[in-house]
Each structure stands twice: as C-alpha cells, then as structure tokens.
C-alpha cells in the first residue's frame, strides 16, 4: 500500500514505495517545481525504484537551482539513503530532528 499526498510545500508519502508503486509516485514528483519538501514520516519502505523517482525529480529541480529536501525520515529510510549515497546528494532531515 502506497499513498502520496500533495501539500503546500511538496509531497507527503506513506506506506511502501516499491517497484510497483514507483510509477504511481512519478507523476506527483513531475508536478513539483522549485524547492520542494518531501515528508517521509509515514514512509515504511523504499527500494531502488522509489529512490530512482526521488533522484530523477531532484536532478530536474536542481538543474533549475532548487531541489528536493527529505524531511521526517525514519531510521530505516535514513540507512537506505546512506547506503545509496543519497545523504550526500539531498538535504536529509531525520524524524527525530526538528524539520
């Protein structure tokens, strides 16, 4: 089960962003512009397909001088972002820190 909710600053994701859900997430990321925040507080799981969606959007927005900021990131997802090297590419705000 995966859910994506647009809000004023960007997107809120919930559930499991796996290879089956990534095509559902992609149009929402394509609709983002400027500096956008992605709230991952309720994201339980992300695989390489979901990471690809984040990276594609971040590259597009960064080319325009902005980018994605990942906030409220749970420890499991922080670990995956670290293993992927994404913590060097994105601003990542763990769930325990004030966003």
């Amino acid at each position: 089960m995966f859910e994506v909710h647009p809000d004023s600053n960007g997107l809120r994701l919930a559930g499991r962003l796996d290879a089956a859900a990534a095509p559902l997430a992609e149009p929402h990321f394509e609709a983002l512009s400027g500096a956008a925040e992605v709230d991952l507080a309720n994201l339980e799981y992300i695989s390489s397909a979901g990471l690809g969606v984040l990276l594609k959007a971040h590259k597009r927005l960064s080319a325009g001088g902005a980018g994605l900021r990942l906030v409220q990131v749970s420890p499991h997802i922080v670990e995956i972002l670290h293993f992927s090297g994404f913590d060097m590419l994105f601003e990542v705000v763990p769930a325990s820190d004030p966003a």
Partner: protein
Amino acid sequence: MKLSLRRELGEIERIVAARRSLFAASDLPDALIYPVDLATEELFVNMLRHNQQGQGPITLELEVVAGGVRVSLADHDAEPFDPASVPPVDISRPLNERQIGGLGLHLVRQLVGSVHYHYHNRCNTLSFMAREEPTDV
C-alpha cells in the same frame, strides 16, 4: 514456504505477505524484515527485466535457518544472468553524474552481503541469506 510468482510487479505484494507470514510464525528478529523485503524485491525485479521473454512463473522460497532466513528465487526458462557481473555503482559521484537506476544490486549487497548464483538447465537461481550480522560483503 514456497510461492509461484507471476511475472509482474504486482506480485511484490504477495512476496511481502509471505514474508509477513513467515516472520509471524517464527521468532525472527524485526531487523531482518527490511533486508529480506528489499533484497527479494530487487532480485525479483531484476529477473523480470533481464528475462522479458520469459513465460513461466518465478519460484520464491523463504526458509528459516539457523540465525536468519534463506531466500531463493528461480526463473525456470532464462538466459544466464549472474548479478556479480554487474559492475558496482559509484555512490560518491556528484548529482549531475548520478544515473537513475542501477542501485538495486548495490543495496542488496549492502543489506545481505553476497548473492549466490546457480544456472542449470536454463534455470537461473539466485539466493541469499539474511542474518542479523552480515556474513560477508
């Protein structure tokens, strides 16, 4: 536990349901959930992508063994595909040089260590062990 998976991404949901049943019926540590889910999904998706001509189902086996879980995926009518032949991803590249994709096997290696590959009679079998302490990298 053995499942016969159709060659479609929607089967990931059944993979997760099977893993949930296995963990609910055993005393496996929760720390193994993410590695098992991720490595199984990535290898399954790789099998679909590298054998798009394949017709038959892919067999998934999940087995509780001493210290963890053994997972194997078998594609019964496939060309050889050894994940070890895929060059490692350089995760230190800057944003403008990072490719979309290619991270799956990298994450598998990070989370469960090596993937065992066996090819016989057109059957491509990939297996791994998820343990609390990684066995090797």
